[in-house]
């Protein structure tokens, strides 16, 4: 493989980037677009730098990240535990499932104002929203992960006279982790959306808060900067979770380079 082919994934977008910037400049020149609707690329860059130097960008990034991580962590735990209980105990499933389906089909984001009224403008309300958004898909996937374990795996444990705890540890837990790890990308994406929407509705800090602040003060640069930072966070989290997934699920990894 040539160097080009090896790094094609990186080289092509990097080539496109300056072209996009030039088009942007050009569009503002030609169309006479006023500064308050779309800033020049250079001005935006300067404002992004000053957001870091004077505008406490790190504080906002950190707030949003904290909401995402705390919410995703707790949400996954809740989804996992309740999903497992539902899969193992029929009565629990029969009792809870109808409610799950109702809540699952309703747009959970619509509860954001409620959470902010209940829990205030701090990190708690946003983390709660993230927990809500993350835990439901995990719960439903955990139920189906446990249900789809082949009967013979349980038979094997029975023949070996394994106890309940060993069945959990050696069979059910690994299959749950498989589900969890392959769902982590989706969960993080939804977590970002949950945190940002929560912040937009009511917060004192965070990138979603910057979005609202920007739109209330007609500060287009602030809005764009928040969008840029959010995309960057999204990309980094995506890459990290992809790495974790590849590493932890080594035993099922298909070498994708063969396809790409």
């Amino acid at each position, binding site marked *: 493989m040539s160097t080009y082919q090896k790094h094609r994934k990186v080289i092509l977008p990097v080539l496109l980037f300056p072209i996009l910037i030039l088009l942007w400049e050009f569009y503002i020149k030609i169309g006479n677009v006023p500064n308050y609707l779309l800033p020049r690329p250079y001005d935006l860059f300067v404002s992004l730098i000053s957001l870091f130097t004077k505008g406490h960008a790190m504080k906002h990034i950190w707030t949003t990240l904290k909401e995402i991580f705390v919410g995703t962590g707790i949400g996954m735990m809740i989804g996992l535990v309740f999903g497992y209980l539902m899969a193992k105990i029929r009565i629990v499933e029969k009792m809870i499932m109808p409610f799950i389906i109702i809540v699952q089909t309703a747009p959970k984001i619509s509860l954001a104002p409620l959470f902010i009224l209940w829990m205030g403008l701090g990190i708690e309300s946003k983390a709660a929203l993230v927990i809500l958004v993350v835990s439901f898909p995990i719960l439903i996937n955990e139920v189906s992960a446990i249900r789809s374990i082949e009967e013979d795996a349980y038979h*094997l444990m029975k*023949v070996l006279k394994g106890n309940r705890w060993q069945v959990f540890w*050696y069979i059910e837990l690994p299959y749950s982790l498989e589900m969890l790890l392959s769902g982590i990308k989706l969960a993080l994406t939804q977590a970002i959306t949950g945190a940002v929407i929560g912040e937009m509705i009511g917060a004192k800090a965070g990138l979603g808060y910057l979005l609202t602040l920007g739109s209330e003060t007609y500060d287009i640069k602030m809005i764009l900067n928040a969008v840029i930072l959010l995309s960057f966070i999204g990309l980094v989290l995506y890459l990290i979770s992809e790495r974790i997934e590849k590493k932890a699920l080594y035993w099922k990894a298909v070498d994708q380079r063969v396809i790409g």
Partner: protein
Amino acid sequence: MGQKENDVVIRDLDKIYGNLLKEDTVALKGINLSIKKGEFVSIIGPSGCGKSTLLKIIGGLEKLSAGTIEYSDPENRLGFVFQDSVLLPWKNVRENAEFPLVIQKKQTKENEEKLDALLDLAGLKEFSSALPRELSGGMKSRVSIVRALSYDAPLLLMDEPFGALDALTRDHLNIELLKIWSKTNKTIIFVTHSIEEAVFLSDRVIVMATRPGRIREIVPIDLTRPRDEDSRNDSKFGEYCRYLREIIG
């Protein structure tokens, strides 16, 4: 042979699967069968006649509806080779084969050495660290057989372990299985679809009939041991196969 002690005795066994919508399925009806210590028996019969059900009941994986089963081993230790291997995908070949020792907390030096010898015997030594997804069907069967042999169970139940393999590989593994069997003195109950395989391996072939699942005939196979490729050329081998084909229909 006739003098040997019984290992498993089944009396008047019935198995009925309840069905909410249709009539109940009578999977097994009036099964009477004694299997001797160290004996190799095969169970053969048309699809759906209850071979797997019978094996699972003997293995304690399925409840019986009527009748009794007695085992000579008070602890009821047994090995089970499932039709589709059931390897844990995140464990490599050796870890999968070692799994029973881990579960039963018997990872003694002696057992580990025995395991390595078995892996060697099964031709899996070089693949010790390979993952299940990297193995061929035949290798997976071998791993699951080694796993069932890795701990001391006097009774080995095998449900079409070579069902998915080509005839050549199957013949080869049959010979390996007989070698292991003669070294370990285990009692083996072996379910198969292949008449040749049943005749080649067994002391007795149990022919089952369907609807309801029952024993049609038990055919003793009087071929000399040890058996190898040449045993298949024995005229008696062909006769047994012809006879069994006739009664199975």
